[in-house]
Structures are given as structure tokens and as C-alpha cells.
């Protein structure tokens, strides 16, 4: 786990790579990798790589980056973990490859040498990497299936720049800082900046589940190797497989396999534990897989103590019952206020989220952990959000136009007049997840910026494009949208920067391309019932008092702590968005 940087002056007319810029970009990412760091410049100074390392696999200097092969043909920087690196290494060794280290970084390099660009399809993990191939004079860049690990690029037509964070790219001083109106509009509409935009015009994210080359002609078209929508669509063809095994047993087998991959580390792996089914089941299954429960960290907020919103007593009870070492970390308003400057400095792009992960990562790091598993992704996988019910219902109601119009008139919320947008899946999803509505943006951004932003963002078309190919069922459509919109753009992105700010690597066993491929037939067949089966999957199953409690969200009491203005929503996230925007653009 790291921060990485890659620069390639691919046009002859481009100036050589500036070591100072490379070092500035790399240094900005120091909290992501406090254990080691370095830069590498090609002899002709046309290519530069930089990395900051958080040592998790192969703690020796053999795993340091940038890494080069013995012949100087391949050079790599890589952020993330390749969980199946041992099996990939074994295969390459059978094919005659000799390794110098036990590092997954070296496996990536040699796998590329042997299998070329299709190597990325064999990887199980979370990753973003850049490989400089000196033989072909081109750079190979890739990002994992779900976009767990970030990678941003800036291409001015002559020099290619990439880094793990937007702010790192800007720290090099050569990338423009003009705000992208589409990114700004996207932030206010959704609560985070939706890909393929960032908040800055000059910077774009590498699309999740893709890879591409950079050579003397520039960037190649990205090649997609994974699609959530396509995975669900394929799952529909395999419905007969869904019925072979008792669902809780199948979930158990496949999630334990995912966990065994995600627990690969040369340091202890802890766990974030709330009183929810996902994190509790992962902890219980980890105890079975490893014959010992992981060290668990739970957050508690001062204003919640003694109320129904306080999950800590339930998490503590569960931890006691299964014998898991557990720490409850109290977070107060005073601490929130004291952390705000660092919080906003670490916030790579504007987002209304990230506070929970900030504090739980902080707590985990304080307890000495470098790695923790999280239950993020469970709601998207098992259909636990209200959107799985509400989005299809909105589509159904709008399919009868008079009903849609009536509903729009009787609804009492700021979105009511947009209700008929919900006749499409994209529109219905936006209605559910949207923060502000299009008509709200002019006062926030200025009329011209709002107009330009909305036009270029073209949000409904972008949301709809996520459903290509059509997953085929209401569950599959909502699951795809939640995974590729809310989870990717907000939960996973915020988990990355908020945890890395504390030099903590968060792993997500339920966000795993292979797991979705394996489970898709069952998920499509059983839908949201899978959450119940998941809670039943450990031996013994989760206790009934835990399985049967109503679902609660993670309630960071921002509204109370920050004294947010009433804004027509129960969470006051619109007000918080304005605070975030103000702090981000002024910072």
C-alpha cells in the first residue's frame, strides 16, 4: 500500500521529466507510505517514477519502490495489494521465472513480462500501478475492478502524469488548478465528484476495471477488463448454478475464500467493527478462517452515548461473545473540531463523507494496526439499502404517467417536482441518491458555471451508461448503480484518503471482482434475502439479537457537532456540503 507517481514525457517536444516535480508529487503522499520512499528517473530523463511505501507484504527493502528488474527493462510503481501473489508467483516459477524478493510488486512486473496487458485479468486485489517498459518505450497503467485504489492522470498532450491523489499531482506545480464545473456540479448533485471527472479540469481518474498504454503517440484507448453490469448480466445466464448449494453455505465458502485472500499480510490485520451484520459476520468468519478473531476497533460518539444510536455497547457485546479483542474509541466534538484542518487537508476531492473512516482509521492506527478489514460493500452486494426497494418502486410508479404526476404533487420534499425523472432507472437512482437538484446549483456555483457543469456532467446519461449491458433485473440494476456510483465515487474513495492519512490500509473483502462473479447468480436469484443468509453463514451463525436488529446507518453526528443549518433534509448534508465546498476551494 502506497502512494505512487509516474511521469512520462512521451512527445519529443516535451521537456524532460523534472526530478523536483517528481519528488514534490511523491512527498505530498508521504502519509500514505511512511515506511520508505524513493524516485527513479530513466537515464534519458523521459520517464520518472515515485513511490511512498507502507510495508505490508515483504517488509524487507526488497519490496521497496520504485522497483526495477535486474536487466533494467521493466520498472514499476504499484499501490495496493495483490492477494493471490503467491499463486501467481508459483505459476511463474513453474514457467521458469526466478524471483529476487517475496514482494507482490515483483510478481506484477514479471507477470506483465510473461502475459502482457492481459496479466491484469489474473490479479485478485486492490491496485493501481504503472509499469515502464523500457524495451517497448511505453508505460502500462492499470486500476482494479471496482476502483478501490485511486489513480489520477493529467495529460497535456506532451507529458503524461499520474499519481494516487489529485492533490499530489497538483503539488508538482505543473498541473492546472482550474476547477471543473462538471466536477463541481457533480459534487453538489451527488455528494462526491463522480467519475470520469475530478474537481480539476486538468485531472481525470483512471477508470476502474481498465488498463491502457502510454507511448510516443500518447494514451491508448482504455481496455476494459471488468464491468459490474456485465458480471450481473452474465450471472443471469447461470441461474441454475444458484440453486445447487444452501445459500448461507455458498456465501460462507466464497466469503471465507475472499477473506483468506484479504488477510494475506506480513503484519497483523485488524477489523472495523460496528453492530452491523457485514462487519460482524466478517469478524466471525475471520475467526474461523484464522482460528483467532482479529483485533476490532469500534467508534462511539459522545452525543450518542446512552441512546439507540450508540452501536458501541452492541459491538462490545458481540466481541465478548466471540472472544475478539476489541477497543471502543470515543470521539468528541472537540476532537472533531481539532481535526478539521488535517481532515480537510487530507480530503483529496470534496465529499460529504469520510468522517467515520477518518476516526475509525485514526483509532486503528493508534492501536498499532497498519491493516484493517472493513465491511464496506456489503450493503451494495446484498441489497440492504432502501434504494433497492425505492428505486424500482419509483420506476414502476412513473411507468403509469398519471401516477407519477400525482406522486410528484403529494410528495413533501425538495425533490418532489423532479419525481417524473424517475421513469428511467438512472433518473430514479438520482432521485434517491441526489443531494441537490439541478435547479439548486446556480446560487451555489454561479449561473454560468452551473449551466456548463450540468451540461458537461450530463449526469443521467452517465448513470445510465453504468447499466450497459443491462444487468437484467431490478436488483441487478440497483446493485450495479450503488457499486459504480455511490460506493465507487464516495465510499471507496473516501475510505482510501481518510485511512491513508493515518497510514492505515483498509481492505474490503466484500468488494472483490471475483466474489461478485461467483455470487452473481445467487444474488440475482435471492436478492436482499442474501443479507440474512450472510448473517447465518458463520458457525455458529451471528446471534439472533444482532441479526434481527434494524439496520442503522453510521451516525457521525455532524449536524449536531457542526451546528449545521436546517436544509430540508434530516441529516443536513446539504449544509455540510456547503461547508465542505467552502473549505475545499479556500484551501
Amino acid at each position, binding site marked *: 500500500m502506497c502512494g505512487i507517481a509516474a511521469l512520462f514525457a512521451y512527445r519529443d517536444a516535451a521537456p524532460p521529466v523534472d526530478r523536483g516535480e517528481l519528488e514534490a508529487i511523491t512527498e505530498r503522499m508521504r502519509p500514505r507510505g511512511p515506511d520508505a520512499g524513493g524516485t527513479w528517473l530513466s537515464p534519458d530523463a523521459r520517464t520518472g517514477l515515485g513511490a511512498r511505501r507502507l510495508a505490508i507484504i515483504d517488509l524487507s527493502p526488497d519490496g521497496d519502490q520504485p522497483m526495477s528488474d535486474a536487466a533494467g527493462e521493466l520498472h514499476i510503481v504499484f499501490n495496493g495489494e495483490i492477494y493471490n501473489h503467491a499463486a501467481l508467483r508459483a*505459476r511463474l516459477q*513453474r*514457467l521458469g521465472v526466478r524471483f529476487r524478493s517475496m514482494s507482490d510488486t515483483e510478481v506484477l512486473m514479471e507477470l506483465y513480462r510473461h*502475459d502482457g496487458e*492481459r496479466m491484469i*485479468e*489474473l490479479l485478485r486485489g486492490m491496485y493501481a500501478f504503472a509499469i515502464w517498459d523500457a524495451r517497448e518505450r511505453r508505460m502500462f497503467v492499470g486500476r482494479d475492478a471496482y476502483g478501490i485504489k485511486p489513480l489520477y492522470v493529467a495529460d497535456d498532450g506532451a507529458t503524461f502524469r499520474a499519481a494516487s491523489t489529485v492533490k499530489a499531482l497538483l503539488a508538482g506545480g505543473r498541473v492546472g488548478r482550474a476547477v471543473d464545473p462538471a466536477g463541481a456540479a457533480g459534487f453538489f448533485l451527488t455528494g462526491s465528484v463522480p467519475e470520469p471527472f475530478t474537481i480539476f479540469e486538468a485531472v481525470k481518474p483512471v477508470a476502474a476495471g481498465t488498463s491502457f498504454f502510454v507511448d510516443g503517440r500518447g494514451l491508448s484507448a482504455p481496455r476494459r*477488463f471488468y464491468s459490474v453490469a456485465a458480471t450481473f448480466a452474465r450471472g443471469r*445466464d*447461470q441461474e*441454475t*448454478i444458484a440453486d*445447487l*448449494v*444452501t445459500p*448461507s*453455505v455458498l456465501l*460462507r*465458502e*466464497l466469503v471465507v475464500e475472499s477473506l483468506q485472500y484479504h488477510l494475506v499480510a506480513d503484519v497483523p490485520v485488524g477489523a472495523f467493527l460496528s453492530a452491523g451484520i457485514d462487519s460482524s459476520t466478517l469478524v466471525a468468519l475471520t475467526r474461523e478462517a484464522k482460528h483467532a478473531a482479529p483485533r476490532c476497533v469500534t467508534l462511539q460518539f459522545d452525543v450518542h452515548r446512552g441512546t439507540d444510536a450508540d452501536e458501541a455497547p452492541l459491538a462490545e457485546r458481540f466481541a465478548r461473545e466471540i472472544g475478539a479483542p476489541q477497543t471502543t474509541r470515543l470521539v468528541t466534538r472537540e476532537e472533531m473540531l481539532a481535526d478539521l484542518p488535517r481532515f480537510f487537508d487530507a480530503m483529496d476531492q470534496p465529499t460529504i463523507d469520510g468522517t467515520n473512516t477518518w476516526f475509525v482509521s485514526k483509532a486503528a492506527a493508534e492501536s498499532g494496526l497498519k491493516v484493517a478489514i472493513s465491511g464496506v460493500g456489503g450493503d451494495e452486494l446484498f441489497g440492504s439499502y432502501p434504494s433497492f426497494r425505492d428505486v424500482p418502486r419509483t420506476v414502476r410508479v412513473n411507468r403509469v404517467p398519471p401516477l407519477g404526476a400525482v406522486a410528484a404533487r403529494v410528495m413533501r420534499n425538495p425533490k418532489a417536482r423532479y419525481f417524473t425523472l424517475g421513469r428511467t432507472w438512472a433518473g430514479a437512482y438520482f432521485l434517491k441518491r441526489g443531494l441537490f437538484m439541478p435547479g439548486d446549483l446556480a446560487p451555489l456555483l454561479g449561473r454560468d458555471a452551473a449551466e456548463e457543469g450540468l451540461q458537461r456532467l450530463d449526469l443521467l446519461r452517465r448513470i445510465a451508461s453504468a447499466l450497459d449491458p443491462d444487468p437484467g433485473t431490478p436488483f441487478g440494476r440497483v446493485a450495479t448503480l450503488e457499486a459504480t456510483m455511490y460506493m465507487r465515487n464516495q465510499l471507496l474513495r473516501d475510505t482510501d484518503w481518510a485511512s491513508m492519512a493515518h497510514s492505515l490500509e483498509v481492505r474490503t473483502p466484500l468488494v472483490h471482482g*471475483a466474489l461478485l*462473479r*461467483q455470487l452473481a447468480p445467487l444474488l440475482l436469484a435471492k436478492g436482499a434475502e442474501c443479507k440474512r443468509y450472510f448473517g447465518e453463514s458463520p458457525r455458529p451463525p451471528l446471534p439472533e439479537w444482532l441479526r434481527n436488529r434494524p439496520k442503522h446507518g453510521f451516525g457521525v453526528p455532524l449536524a449536531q457537532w457542526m451546528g449545521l443549518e436546517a436544509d430540508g433534509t434530516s441529516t443536513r448534508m446539504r449544509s455540510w456540503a456547503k461547508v465542505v465546498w467552502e473549505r475545499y476551494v479556500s484551501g
Partner: protein
Amino acid sequence: MRLLVLCTDAYGGHGGIALYTRDLIEALASHPRVDEVVAIPRVIRGALETPPPNVTFVAGAARNAAAYFAAVARYARRPFDLVVCAHVNLLPVARMLRRKTLLMIYGIEAWKPARRGAALVDGVDGVASISEITCDRFLNWSRYRGPSFLIPNAIHLERYAMRERSAALAARWGLGDGARVLLTLGRIVAAERYKGFDEVIEVLPSLPDDVVYLAAGSGSDLPRLVAKTRALGVAGRVVFTGHIDEREKTDVYNLADVYVMPSRGEGFGFVFLEALACGVPCIGSRHDGGREALRGGELGLLIDPSSQAELRTAIADVLAEGRREIPPGLAYFAYPNFESRVHSTLDELT
């Protein structure tokens, strides 16, 4: 000691369970303390093989249901030390006999609660499974907590051989000299789509043109697979052989460069043992009993059957290696070891 075996089929039967049951009966019969084994089959489909002298095979029971129950009633009056219920569907009959009972489990029939008499499994005295995965999945839904035994399939190594490709079969199916052949053997029916025929067909376009696929089997799902080969543009590279005669099976295996079955529903995968006994390298699934037939990767490559990339890479690697051998580790499944496991099970239960 006298044993009663209630079986779906055995002598005169086709398929994996029939073969396993024949081996089981013969292993039971060879136990030094066993005087007689009476086997009552539910069906007979073909010519009867000859059972050992101390086996009474009640062929007449297979005429119809009435004959079956009449045979069971007749033998129920005789003393038996153990009833071996060779399929969970026969458990209601076995339990009526009120004798010490050993239940045999194989695969999908035991992975979920039995349709009939799920509670009946609670009272059996032993469960023998052909694989750990079947046993594990069975124990997950049943309340049975008695002794369990692992008795994987047996391979009679002397019945197979590694030899040159049969020119006659190659000609029959249009396999040119330079063709590299992938093979899967199995029924091609909708209920068994878990076998992995689809997955191999889907990966074929990404393999070199000289790689052809021999889909060896027959069944009602054939038209769908044929349509798939056309849609993917590989119709000329896939041969659907139809039903395979047992007498040609060894030659069929010997046509293959790789036996590949990326399945999700195999309780074990006896076909892997057959392929290995003919020296054919194998690729199986990590997610079903195939992984045990390949001994966790010792006897072949294991992949995630949902991953086209893993399947494609495994096939390419095996073809590139181009090695054929009968792995020494296959002896683990040789019939003498099977017989020994059956005898140990009997010793523990009686």
C-alpha cells in the same frame, strides 16, 4: 456378517454412482468378516456385470416399484448387521428396516436438505462421503452429528492406459494431426449446466485456432450449446460427439491434450481420475469436488470456474507444457486403497 445394500443402480447401471456402487459392493464383499452382501437395485439399464460370489444381486427388484418394495420386504425379514443406503433418496426405505444404517452421499443430492425425509438423516449411524466438500455441505444443513467417513471414488488403473491417438476416432470427429484437443465428458442437460461446457466454449475464441474442443456427451441441452458455438464463431472448432460407448472411453481420453472441466456442481469428478489414468493433464475447479479429485492441485491445475482469464491461462499453460504422464499421486485413488477405506469404515461401524 451380512450386509444389505439399497442402491439406485449398480450392476447393469450407467454413470458415476452406478460405478461407485459396484466398487462399494465389491469392497464390502471382500471384507474378511463379510459372509454375504445383498444388493437391491432400483433400476437396471443395461447388461449385467458379474458380481462376486458372495454378492446376491436382486436384479428382479428393478422391474418396477412394486417389485422393488416386494424385494425389500422379503429381505427385511432376514438378519443384517448393517444396511448401506447408497443414495439419500432411498433413506425412507432404509429407515423402515430399523437396522444400523450407513448413508452414502456423493454431491448435489446431499448439498441441500433432502426433499424426502430430511429429518431421517438424523438417525443414521454413519455417513460416508466421496468428498470433503459434500460432507461439509451436508453437515451444514443436517442435524446429523455421528461418525463420518471419507471414501472417494476408486480408479481401476489397469482398465486405462496412456496411448497414441486413435486414428479412427480422430477421423470420425475430424481431428487433424495438428489439432490440440480440449475434452470434457458429461451429460449435456440443463440440470447439469454446472459442468462447465459453456465456460470452455466461451474461452475458445481467445485460444489459438488449432485448439479444438471435444464436448463428449449427449443430452437435451445440446441445441443451446450448438447455438452458442455459432454465436461465438467457433462452431468449426467444437465437436459434439454424442453418447460415448464405455468401450471407447479410454481412446476418447487419449485424443485429448487437456481434460478441462471448470465445474461448480461436481461432488468429486471421477472423470478426472479417468483422464489422469490415460496420462491426460487436467484442469478442474477450486469450488467443487473437482479440487479433491485433483488433490488440491497436486494432480492438476485448479481454477475459479467463474474466471475466463484463469481458464484461458491454465489451458494455454498446459498446452504449452505439452506433457503427458500418469501422475504417481493418482495411486491414492487406486482401488486397493478404496477397498481399504471401505473395510476401515465397516470395522468402525460394526
